[in-house]
């Protein structure tokens, strides 16, 4: 018997493993996602994010280990889970020859949404995502962004407690992406747990917790701030007319770790004492013939954190 205080977390896995032939896609993953979290799954291609999500969605069975969603085993008690979760796959998985409205209605009916509520919820969701005028259009004639929105809407029709989203905004224009996250934020406020795999680091910033997945294993997990703090050193930005030359010049400065060009600035992970960074860099660059270089502090964003930690892990 579990009291509200010890209600099982949305997701808990222990030693979760999945093999495809010789390939170990998910390798002994121990993960806990608290209720109400917006949990980001980050990692390179082939890291196992999709497989992990599918294991949690009860679509795949584990080769070893266990996964529990809201306290129910995905293997043995799938039917307890499927009505409470929504899963959005990476590829478009709607019926291409059915209209937006028909797709929504079908999946809602199949997931047990009562008839009286189907129409109202559908309208609300479509309007909310800007798909209202496309209700009568066949799904195959939608653009990439609209397709993703349709899938999300379909996943939300039955008001699931847990959302499993596999790279939901890939190929979507920035405006639509913002709208998408606005919807997710609204769901978060309403208490829905969201587990989202994303390659976009800026989206990782918006999560309450994140985890890095690489080679089927979890490398780091924590809140974005905690993960950022794991990065050794201070992140510094150098603005100068010739970023490439600057990177070359900094190659022989030992405290200037992994200098690289990002856009039109150079970023350096300063390994020495933080206070010395500005002065030492400016001096070094001036000596190399770039007196006009400006140095300023930068926040460790997830992009850098990911790159640095992934490299460190190798």
């Amino acid at each position, binding site marked *: 018997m579990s009291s509200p205080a010890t209600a099982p977390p949305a997701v808990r896995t222990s030693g979760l493993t999945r093999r495809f032939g010789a390939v170990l896609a998910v390798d002994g993953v121990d993960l806990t996602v608290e209720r109400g979290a917006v949990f980001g799954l980050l990692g390179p291609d082939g890291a196992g994010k999709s497989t992990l999500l*599918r294991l949690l*969605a*009860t*679509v*795949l*069975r584990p080769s070893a280990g266990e996964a529990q969603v809201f306290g129910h085993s995905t293997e043995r008690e*799938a*039917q307890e889970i*499927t*009505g409470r*979760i*929504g*899963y959005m*796959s990476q*590829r*478009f*998985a*709607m*019926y*291409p*020859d*059915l209209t937006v409205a*028909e797709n929504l*209605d*079908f*999946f809602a*009916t*199949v*997931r*047990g949404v009562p008839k009286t509520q189907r129409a109202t919820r559908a309208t609300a969701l479509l309007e909310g995502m800007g798909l209202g005028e496309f209700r009568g259009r*066949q799904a195959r004639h939608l653009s990439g962004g609209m397709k993703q929105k349709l899938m999300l809407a*379909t996943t939300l029709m039955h008001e699931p407690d847990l959302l499993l989203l596999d790279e939901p905004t890939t190929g979507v224009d920035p405006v639509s992406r913002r709208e998408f996250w606005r919807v997710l934020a609204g769901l978060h406020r309403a208490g829905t747990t969201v587990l989202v795999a994303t390659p976009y680091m800026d989206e990782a910033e918006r999560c309450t917790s994140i985890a890095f997945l690489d080679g089927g294993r979890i490398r780091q997990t924590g809140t974005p701030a905690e993960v950022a703090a794991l990065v050794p050193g201070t992140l510094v930005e150098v603005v100068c007319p010739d970023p490439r030359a600057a990177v070359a010049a900094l190659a022989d400065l030992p405290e200037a770790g992994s200098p690289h060009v990002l856009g039109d600035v150079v970023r350096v992970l300063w390994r020495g004492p933080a206070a010395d960074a500005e002065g030492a860099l400016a001096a070094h660059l001036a000596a190399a013939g770039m007196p006009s270089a400006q140095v300023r502090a930068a926040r460790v964003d997830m992009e850098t954190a990911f790159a640095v930690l992934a490299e460190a892990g190798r």
Partner: protein
Amino acid sequence: MSPTLTRIGAVARKEFIHVRRDPRLLAVVLVMPIMQLLLFAYAISFDVRNLPTLVVDLDHTPDSTAYVRAYEASGLFEVTSRADSLAAVDGAFDRNEARVAVVVPAGFARSLARGEAAEVGILLDGSEPNSARIAQTYAAALNQLESRQIAVTWAATQGIDLTQSGSVEPRLRTWYNPERASSIFLVPGLMVVVIMIVTAQQTAVTLVREREQGTAEQLLVSPLRRVELMVGKLTPWVLMAFLDLVVIAVLGLFLFHIPLRGSVLALGIGAALFVASCLGIGLIVSAVAPSLDTANMAAFLVAFLPAFLLSGFAFALDQVPAVIEWISRVFPARYMVTISRGVFLKGAGLDQLWPEVAALAAYALVTLVLAARLNGRRA
């Protein structure tokens, strides 16, 4: 309404929308059976008639003319050309201008007048074996008749009454199909072929398509049970198969005047079980076929070809090697053809047809259970 029924209803409704949005599919399922019916009923015949015949009469006597006329008078041979030399026969056969050549050599009448045996050559083009065999048989019979006539007439002039030997005269009675209309023979079986194609092929394709579209996964993440999915998916196809059945039956009855002599109940039960069996086959194919192409080809191999070749619909199975006969028992089409023909032509009812009905029931049960097991297993 119970949640199961609601879900099944949703799937069935969706399937109907798919069909509605795919005009070609509708054409295949509704138009093609009718087209096949018309083709088979009108075009196909095993009856041999009007075989183009070449007559080479080298005798030019009243006797030879009378002999040749016997062939002309039969409905089987149609004298389309006459020639004056044997060499013409080769050319006529080579160019497919004639299938039969009747060669009456010079001296025909003289031999007869002397009371001897006169030789006549009947040459047949064996490249159409069915016609050739029938032509051979009839020519022999015709010849016997003519021969007898000649003998009797001659004997009379000699004062001998050869008719004393009496003669046996065949009284031919054709049961079930007195006009020997091929359509009567073919149409009841055609229904079976059409249903098999529509149900087995389409069901095979429909589930594979869900997999390929990715929606199968979405359906897994829902309370939908595999049985509900299957029932919902099959409903439109069952209805369309029955629609086809009714249309063909109606056309057959009123356009082709096929009799309906037996128990409609037996036909209905048999049809229902047959449809269920075909659906089962289609579902099994869809569960094991990795891709749409393979599903199509497998359905063709397992549904269309056996229905066409091994059901007894157009080609009798009595004379087939034992191995093939056993293989034909594996497919349900054969039992349904027996039931269909039995009910339409032979006036049969459940008393006579219960073995076939039982076979179909067993078949339906086995395939549906197997299909349910194989489909929708999580990876």
